[in-house]
């Protein structure tokens, strides 16, 4: 069953990605509508997949890298769909869908793991921790994509070589606005995610904080985003500099998410997480 929902989600998300890419080239509104609804369909299957996983495991299905990547992809699409309702910025989909699909493809290449889940993971704090962190990550991913779009557009306007992106991308003000908006909302989610995480650590491991590599890097990520937010709000950073900074921040975040787990180890890494008891 799990397998089926995952593949359906993957299939529709890839199809939507293709649609969105053709849309940005051809600029046909009808293409956007089709792609949008295909993405929504993929998102529904993805949600069913996650709900099924939650039901089967009794906790958020993020205990290995495969499911974590898929959950990351889901949260990006989730944030995008909300943004689409709020901003109605069609071209954003052409950047979000490929990114989300890329994560899904990565996820699909990894093997499925089976087996019962350790009871220690069946905890509401863990679900809260993971949920808020990933919504925050989704928002930061959108901020990252908006920053890339901003730099593309700004480059064209500054260099005065208007290319095909000039007419396809929205105005600088819009892109900067989306970047700032996603930061503003992403940061509280990240903060809450870290707090609930440490509460869960206290519950599961008996200590709030133990200088684990993942914890340290999360703190570094948090500080990076805090610095960016401060510069934006207090100093009045905007535009190019803020865009570059949010791209750097996102790279740090991705390193914390994947790199630390794969290379630096620690109790939080997926391998040592040992989510499932070996049979």
């Amino acid at each position, binding site marked *: 069953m799990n397998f089926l929902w995952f593949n359906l989600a993957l299939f529709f998300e890839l199809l939507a990605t293709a649609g969105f890419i053709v849309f940005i080239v051809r600029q046909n509104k009808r293409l956007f509508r089709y792609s949008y609804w295909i993405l929504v369909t993929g998102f529904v299957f993805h949600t069913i997949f996650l709900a099924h996983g939650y039901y089967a495991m009794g906790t958020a299905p993020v205990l290995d890298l495969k499911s974590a990547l898929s959950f990351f992809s889901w949260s990006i699409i989730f944030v995008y769909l909300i943004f689409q309702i709020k901003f109605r910025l069609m071209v954003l989909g052409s950047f979000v869908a490929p990114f989300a699909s890329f994560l899904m493809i990565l996820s699909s290449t990894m093997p499925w793991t089976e087996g019962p889940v350790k009871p220690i993971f069946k905890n509401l704090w863990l679900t809260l921790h993971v949920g808020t962190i990933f919504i925050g990550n989704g928002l930061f991913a959108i901020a990252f994509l908006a920053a890339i779009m901003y730099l593309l557009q700004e480059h064209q306007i500054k260099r*005065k070589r208007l290319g095909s992106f000039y007419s396809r991308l929205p*105005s600088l003000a819009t892109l900067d606005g989306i970047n700032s908006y996603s930061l503003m909302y992403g940061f509280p989610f990240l903060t809450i995610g870290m707090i609930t995480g440490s509460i869960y650590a206290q519950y599961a491991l008996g200590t709030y904080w133990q200088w684990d590599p993942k914890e340290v890097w999360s703190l570094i990520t948090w500080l990076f985003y805090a610095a960016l937010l401060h510069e934006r709000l207090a100093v009045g950073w*905007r535009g190019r500099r803020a865009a570059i900074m949010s791209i750097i921040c996102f790279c740090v975040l991705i390193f914390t998410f994947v790199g630390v787990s794969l290379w630096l180890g620690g109790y939080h890494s997926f391998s040592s997480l040992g989510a499932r008891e070996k049979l």
Partner: protein
Amino acid sequence: MTRILNIGMNHLSAPVELRECLATDADNAHKALSYMRSLDCIRESMFLSTCNRVETVVTTDSIDKARASIIGMMSRLGDLAEHHFSSCLYTFVDLDAVRHVFCVASSLDSMVVGEPQILGQIKVAYAQATREKTSGVILNRLMHRAFHVAKRVKTETEICEAAVSISYAAVELAKKIFHELKGKKVLLIGAGEMAELAARHLIRQGVSSMVVANRTFERAVELAEVFRARPISMAEIFAELLEVDIVVTSTASPEYIIPYELVRGLLRKRRNRPLFFIDIAVPRDVQPEVNNLDNVYVYDIDDLKGVIQFNMAQRQQEALKAKRIVEEEVVKYEKWLKTLAVVPTIVSLQQKAESIIEMEIRKSSSALGDLSPSQVEAIRTLTRSIAEKVLNDPILFLKNRAERPTLDNYLDVTRKLFNLDKDMDREE
């Protein structure tokens, strides 16, 4: 059969040095028209010469003869050897010529596609041709249709709007920077015609307030009244730069009015809000390096021209639409041209009827005796209307068959049935 021939050169086919040679003498058109009128092989003619193109449109029975004599004429007009420019000429025949004329008139063939002057220039050239009586049925119709096409292209596509105006390009850019111009503040420095145009465009887009500065304060006040703006002196510009979003400069000042260091000092105080300089002054008012500052964008007149070029490329869709309109009109014109083919036959039919009437009245005049003028008139009307009624159906039949490929057969049969060609032979 009469055919349409168009020989010419434009900005693409010939270098400017060559076009100049033919465009220098204002009397060239007159010379060309009177020469072409004197030729036997050319029936109707028209001559257009602008800085970007030279076009001759003629109707002729012999394409080759006409072409040779037109090239000879051009070589004499421009004082050029034929081999110097013959490779730069294009030749269009019949419908291709029609299409080309339509494209030229609707400014699709212009260097700046959509520029409006060309239509006026064609109208002048056509007026001269009618004045010198070198244009006839086919060219008259062709030119009137060309004016009609130009009008359709102008109203049904957006080609013209985007192409010509610098201020349109500036506003488009501003929208790509600020998203919308509602609530934005504009500073106008200097008061040229172009600046006024840009200001008007910006106001139409909903900018909330405008400040006008000028070297002579009176002029600033004057302009401020037009736009319901606030006039300031030049010394106050720097304070205003902290507030505004868009600056339009167009002063005649030889030095930069907005130097790099000044703008750099402003950024922090402005909290990095984007600032867009539209510099339409020559020499420039804004130091070009200002563009290197973050969140500051400087476009001078050349940059804006570049944007116009880009906009035009973006109007490919519009160009396609315009091409479709041209094609539609070419088809319509072709239909009309074909009805022309039946005209000689119809005319000879009518002439034959006319001559029969004349002959029969003459024959019967002795039998009829003395008639009052009104009676003579009545007989004429009677005979003529009988002839018309009899010929009406064959004529309609021919006109309706004008577009059919079998038209020639019908014409042939008609001429034989009514023995039209024998009559002509006898006349000769």
